[in-house]
């Protein structure tokens, strides 16, 4: 399984936060911080979940907080390339229709 990493990079008009590994309570605070920092830059934010093998409620909470923050500042916040494991948890939390979810950033841009 992947190492737990959280890398932010600028991809054109988006800041993309790439998560990998198992997002759980042991480092979900780091994830939360990274997402809020990305939003603090003032642009659009995407979170790449393609390499996420596991995410728990604290990881979901970090995503929800990012979404709420973006909405309150009228910014775009999307999830891209959501892995099956992450998607299952989003569905379980009934958040799969709350988040804007795309296969990649291009799809998000053209939506």
């Amino acid at each position, binding site marked *: 399984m992947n190492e737990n990493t959280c890398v932010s990079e600028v991809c054109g008009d988006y800041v993309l936060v790439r998560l990998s590994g198992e997002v*759980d*309570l*042991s480092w979900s*605070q780091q994830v939360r911080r990274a997402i809020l920092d990305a939003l603090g830059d003032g642009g659009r934010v995407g979170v790449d979940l393609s390499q996420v093998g*596991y995410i728990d409620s*604290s990881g979901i909470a970090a995503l929800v907080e990012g979404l709420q923050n973006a909405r309150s500042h009228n910014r775009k916040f999307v999830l891209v390339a959501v892995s099956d494991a992450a998607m*299952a948890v989003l569905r*379980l939390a*009934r958040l799969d229709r*709350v988040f804007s979810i795309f296969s990649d950033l291009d799809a998000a841009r053209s939506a």
Partner: protein
Amino acid sequence: MNAAWPATACVPEHDPVRHGGRRALGFLADLSQALAVSLDLRTTLEPALARILDFMQAEAASLFLLDETTNLLECRVCVGPVDIVGLKVAAGQGVVGRAVAQNAPQRIDDARNDARVNTRVDAETGFVTRAILCVPLATAQGPLGAIEIINRRDGGAFDEDAAEILRLIAAPMALAINNARLAAKLAEQQRIRREMALARSIQKSLLPRRRRGRFPLIGVNLPAHEISGDFYDYFELPDQRIAFFIGDISGKGLDAAFLMVRVASLLRFSGKDASTPAAWLSEVNRELCNTLQHGRFVCAVVGIYDRGTRCATLASAGFPPALRDDGIRFEELPADGPPLGILAEAEYGERQVDLADAALYLFSDGATDVREGARDRLGSDGLRGLIRRHAALAPEPRLRALIGELKRRKLVDDTTLLLLQEPRGSQVRELLALRFPAAPIRMRAVRAALRTALDAEDVAPELRDRLVLAVDEACTNIIRHAYRHQLGEDTCDETDSIALRVTRERDRLGFELRDEAPCVDAARIKPRDPSECRIGGLGLAFIDATMDAWYIEGLPGGCGNRLIMHKQLKAKTESDE
């Protein structure tokens, strides 16, 4: 005539009353010995009284005993020309009555001219009473009765010396009577105890023997006293199904115990060819209505259990609600009709109870009536708590533990428990047992171990991942809320640990998490509505959505919590997805 006593050696030989201290003492010794020969007053009192008659040189002697309940004195033994055995006088009346009432000797020198003397016996018999001496049979607890002697043979009156000697003679008589009464009381108590023990052993012999091997029914009967008005029984029907019943006779004591014997026999007899539990109850009810004494009734549950389908059919006549326990929840099964013996036309419903993964508890109200303190009843909730506390035990040790708990409290009524549960034993397999420090950083390894264990059971990957998520969420809740570790804290006190145990019983997975944190308030732990978009409570919502059932309880002693979660592998998972 009045000589000092003890008399001197020169008193005339022919007058024993005055013969002197030595003779009197010798007589006393002989009398005491004669009285000590037997505790049977019928054989000792009459010869003793005859000796006294001779010694005192009197014409007649009688012994009266006081009946404390009626306060009447009755003549029990007499010697002399007139038989007055059975004569009764009230305490305080006549010479004898006065001796007892005043607890003091009475002496009448001229009975014919003394108003204190009751002349009725003389009038009826022609006997002439001239002189009377009467002393109480004194004990520390008051007089038992009195000895009366009548008429000196030489025609004279009894003097103070004679009174003193008779008082001395009365002492060993009183002692002998007292001893005999105590011995009789003791013998009576022993007899009652023996008979009660016999009654108890007869009752016990009616209870079914504990079956060896994998039999699904066990029962216990605890009488509040020697004998019981409760009963239970079970037996196999020709088609291999098992019939069982438990009951409680209204009232207590011997009559309830006798009735119990009858009702238990009747239920057993009728159960052999009853088509259904409801028909079984109706038949016994009709019979009891015809024969029970007014005001008596019987509460009972009858049932038939099919080991093949693991399903029981029950019918209850006014019995306390049965409890079905699936390990998570209790289901109460109320009575299906009135107690037996009240309404001949009563009709009883019946219900099917699935016991594939559950236990059925039947208990008489004695089990919930045990007193916790001076007044508090244990109640149904208290009993459920005790069942939960011992839920991990196999049926037999669990029943023993429950009985132990009930006995530690105060039993106020006969108490009977019947437990119906397929023995599990080797059917429960442990899939995983881990103890790990309560730190988020450890959870990745725990999840990996759990995934491996579930894969080994061929649990479908989607379900496996959800189960792993649920267990993970439960652990992080323990870390955050029970142990109160702060987010982002990487270190933890190594003594704070969590124990995870995963078991499989047939198609049911069991997840047990134990911690040593202070007890949490189970009532406050509620999952949030999943449609609510907020952060808190999401983990619990995952658990609730994934597991069939779960509960959390504080462990006894205020330290530690236990979370139990169940998941059925077949059927339910599909409808869930």
